[in-house]
């Protein structure tokens, strides 16, 4: 109790007792002056009692809270008051009421034990004075008993007050945490609402969910940055990264998990340390996101295996039926051409037909090979991942109409070219938005990276700047056409086109 922060009720009790002591002093002085003949001892008693009362009122309240403070003050007070009592007639003294002040103070600040000890000390001294005056212990009993009753009473009241105070504090804390929980729930609710909007709009993807989640969390922690990492089959994938890491940052890792699986983790760097309660709150907050990720993964698995089954079925049909039938047709044409050697025109027509059939067989073979190779991520998914770290300003938007992913032979280079163009626009354009748009199918497509920034004069821009040469070389390698279109002040558009429509 000694070093704790004073509760408001203790101030009020302290003040009440101080005032009570003044009243008791005045009453005692008046009674003593009226009834007593020995003026000198009365004056000394008055002086001692007044010193005590003013002293207790003057001593700063904090002195009671230092170690042994309350004990020392009340012990000294007990001696002073008992001295006044002794000087003015012992057990019948008008200062007897005032001498109950120190035990009461001791009870308030030191608890029941200290209170009782001070009470017993005063009572003991009182008993000795009574015996010294020639009276029996029986005469001292009312006085001593009074002390003990008082001390007990005060301590009970004190305990009641403390309990009430404790309950009030607990109640306030409960209200506080309930309010916080409610706010968390509201945010979770809004995130879920956004998720359901995304689902209904058909644009649910892990990157957007991750970005939304991360932004919502960082908004609650000032001066923080973070990354949201998803555990993929091929290792961890950074889905979103926001904010600038603060100096001397504290690092936290919040697991993203559902009941039966670990989905990933949220990595936070904060300028101020987070409490355990904060972390629990964040964990609660990311719970629906973990479930959303797990569901997304499940959905992808289901769609993936359904697609895989269909691919296998198609591949088998092409491999077992369509391909050999075409090949057999080719052989029949070869035979016919041989037998019609004496009719050159007909033989030539047959050879043209044969060439077409050969091309068809090769197409079937390529399709079978494509269908049998595991389907990789789409161009959209690759770009979303490669540009995930480009956030904020300018805003990077990937909006591709991708019917089927480009062929495995070109998709890697296409991803590199478009990522490079997007990075250039992000770093150098100074615009507010970079849009990657286009239409893509398996064998052909056209994509543009458009920014609304400063632009440049294409005739004066030195080649080699911004990796333009590298982009051109890559495009050439996969037989794609790349075009840079820019006007100073009107932004830049990089267009890449590949395959034949």
């Amino acid at each position, binding site marked *: 109790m000694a070093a704790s922060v004073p509760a408001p009720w203790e101030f009020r009790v302290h003040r009440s007792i101080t005032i009570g002591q003044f009243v008791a002093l005045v009453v005692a002085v008046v009674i003593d002056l009226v009834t007593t003949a020995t003026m000198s001892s009365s004056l000394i008693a008055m002086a001692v009692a007044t010193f005590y009362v003013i002293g207790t009122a003057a001593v700063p309240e904090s002195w009671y809270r230092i170690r042994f403070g309350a004990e020392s003050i009340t012990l000294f007070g007990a001696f002073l008051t008992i001295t006044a009592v002794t000087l003015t007639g012992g057990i019948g003294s008008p200062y007897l009421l005032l001498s109950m002040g120190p035990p009461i103070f001791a009870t308030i600040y030191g608890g029941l034990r200290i209170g009782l000890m001070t009470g017993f000390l005063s009572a003991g001294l009182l008993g000795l004075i009574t015996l010294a005056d020639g009276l029996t212990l029986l005469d001292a009993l009312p006085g001593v008993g009074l002390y003990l009753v008082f001390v007990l009473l005060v301590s009970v009241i004190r305990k009641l007050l403390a309990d009430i105070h404790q309950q009030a504090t607990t109640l306030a804390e409960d209200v506080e945490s309930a309010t916080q929980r409610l706010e968390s729930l509201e945010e979770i609710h809004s995130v879920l609402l956004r998720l359901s909007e995304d689902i209904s709009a058909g644009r649910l993807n892990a990157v957007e969910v991750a970005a939304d989640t991360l932004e919502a969390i960082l908004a609650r922690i000032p001066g923080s940055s973070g990354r949201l990492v998803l555990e993929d089959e091929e290792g961890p994938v950074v889905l979103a990264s926001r904010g600038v890491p603060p100096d001397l940052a504290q690092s936290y890792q919040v697991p993203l998990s559902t009941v039966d699986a670990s989905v990933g983790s949220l990595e936070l760097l904060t300028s101020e340390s987070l409490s355990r309660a904060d972390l629990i709150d964040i964990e609660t907050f990311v719970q629906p996101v973990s479930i959303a990720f797990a569901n997304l993964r499940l959905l992808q698995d289901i769609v993936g295996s359904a697609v895989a089954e269909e691919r296998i079925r198609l591949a088998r049909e*092409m*491999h*077992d*039926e369509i*391909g*050999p*039938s*075409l*090949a*057999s*047709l*080719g*052989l*029949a044409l*070869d*035979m016919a051409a*041989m*037998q019609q050697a*004496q009719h050159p025109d007909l033989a030539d027509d047959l050879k043209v037909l*044969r060439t077409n*059939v*050969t091309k068809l*067989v*090769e197409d*079937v*073979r390529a399709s*079978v*090979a494509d269908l*049998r190779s595991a389907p990789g991520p789409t161009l959209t998914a690759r770009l979303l991942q490669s540009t995930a770290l480009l956030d904020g300003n300018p805003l990077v938007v990937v909006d591709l109409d991708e019917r089927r992913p480009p062929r495995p032979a070109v998709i890697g280079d296409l991803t590199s070219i478009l990522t490079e163009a997007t990075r250039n626009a992000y770093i150098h354009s100074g615009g507010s938005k970079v849009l990657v748009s286009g239409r893509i199918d398996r064998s052909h497509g056209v994509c543009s990276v458009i920014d609304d920034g400063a632009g440049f004069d294409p005739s004066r821009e030195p080649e080699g700047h911004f990796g333009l040469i590298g982009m051109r070389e890559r495009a050439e390698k996969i037989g794609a056409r790349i075009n840079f279109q820019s006007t100073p002040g009107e932004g830049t558009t990089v267009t890449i086109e590949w395959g034949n429509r």
Partner: protein
Amino acid sequence: MIRVMIADDHQLFAEGLSQALDILPDTRVVGVVGSGPALEEALETQPAEVSIVDIEMPGGDGIDSIAELGRRTNAIVVSMYASDEQKGRAVKAGAKGFFSKGVPLMMLAAAIRAVADGQDLIVLDDTARDELLEHYGEARLDPGAASLTEREREILQLLAVGVSATDELAERLYISQKTVKNHLASVFQKLAVSDRTQAAIEAIRLGIARPN
């Protein structure tokens, strides 16, 4: 004459290939089977210099059988799904050639001649392989058939279209009937046949004559 065994589960392709190889003068298909194990079994009783083998067949993989067969036949893999991995397997098993099913008949025929002649095509790159195959583009006839004279070939062509009487042949070729008989005797010997009908059939089969 090169004897060829075909192992392919796709009936239409196998029969088409069989017919196509049979009209070539120097190849004869001696059996068509539908699986690897069936190929092994068929070769027990019917030898073949060359086997055309598909990879994936319901009854058993073709490449496994190539390894089993060893030197008993020269295997050429002709498959729909010709991936590098499958080609690697074929090389290990000892196949001598590896083609897609889209392969033109003349190229396959050249490959059959080449592997029957002891060549190993599978180790060559495409350019070297095609160069080598050019040498095998023409049918290799038996020594007898190869030694037929121009006049003897003319007589065989006439036999193939149904002109078989000695006087008619003599009239058509502006030669004496005695000379016709001499030529015919030479042809019978070179083709190892005993009459004009057999000679006509063999001439058509060898591609020396056409029946129309």
